């Protein structure tokens, strides 16, 4: 899976608690992305990063924050988890801008908020 590791792979958490998901890459790619996948919606972009400390919002960013202090790590934080954030989260990386090159995906993190 192109040197992308997501952790944890599965997590169950309670409503209102903060949660952090980690994406680690060994490819030295500049661009990193967090998507969520829900039935009937495909993948939706939450946040992305185009370099260390350079991040921007995606389509469904409310309730999420991200940080990228190193090239290889991209963290996604749910400030206060809600049941609507139950989903499968995917990290992706790409060498160039997303539209012009292929993206490589991690294996996903299944998050359940109860």
């Amino acid at each position, binding site marked *: 899976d192109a040197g992308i590791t997501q952790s944890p792979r599965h997590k169950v958490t309670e409503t209102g608690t903060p949660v952090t998901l980690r994406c680690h890459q060994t490819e030295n790619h500049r661009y990193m992305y967090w998507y969520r996948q829900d039935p009937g919606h*495909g993948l939706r972009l939450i946040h992305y990063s185009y370099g260390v400390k350079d991040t921007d919002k995606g389509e469904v960013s409310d309730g999420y924050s991200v940080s990228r202090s190193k090239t290889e790590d991209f963290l996604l934080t749910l400030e206060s988890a809600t049941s609507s954030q139950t989903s499968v989260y995917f990290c992706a990386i790409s060498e160039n801008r997303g539209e*012009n090159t*292929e993206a490589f995906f991690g*294996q996903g993190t299944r998050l359940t908020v109860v």
Partner: protein
Amino acid sequence: SQQGEEDPQALSIQEGENATMNCSYKTSINNLQWYRQNSGRGLVHLILIRSNEREKHSGRLRVTLDTSKKSSSLLITASRAADTASYFCATPLNNNDMRFGAGTRLTVKP
């Protein structure tokens, strides 16, 4: 709203048959990509077709793009049980975002 939408939502065929999936999109694009997702796994890039290309091949995969109709198709020839997966088209929305459709679930029966 989704930029790319795949059709059909689900497709079931016998091994050896061809599988055709379609993708429609709404705005002008520079390129379109197809991805495959096996159950419980991340997406894997299959092929990228640029707006000035009409057809592209990769092994048993054939992708067409009709920019006048804002549509693309993915053909898998001589399908195998291992082709069972969900297939997604992805189109660029802005400089750094790709929009994925809800996917086509393909089942290839042995």
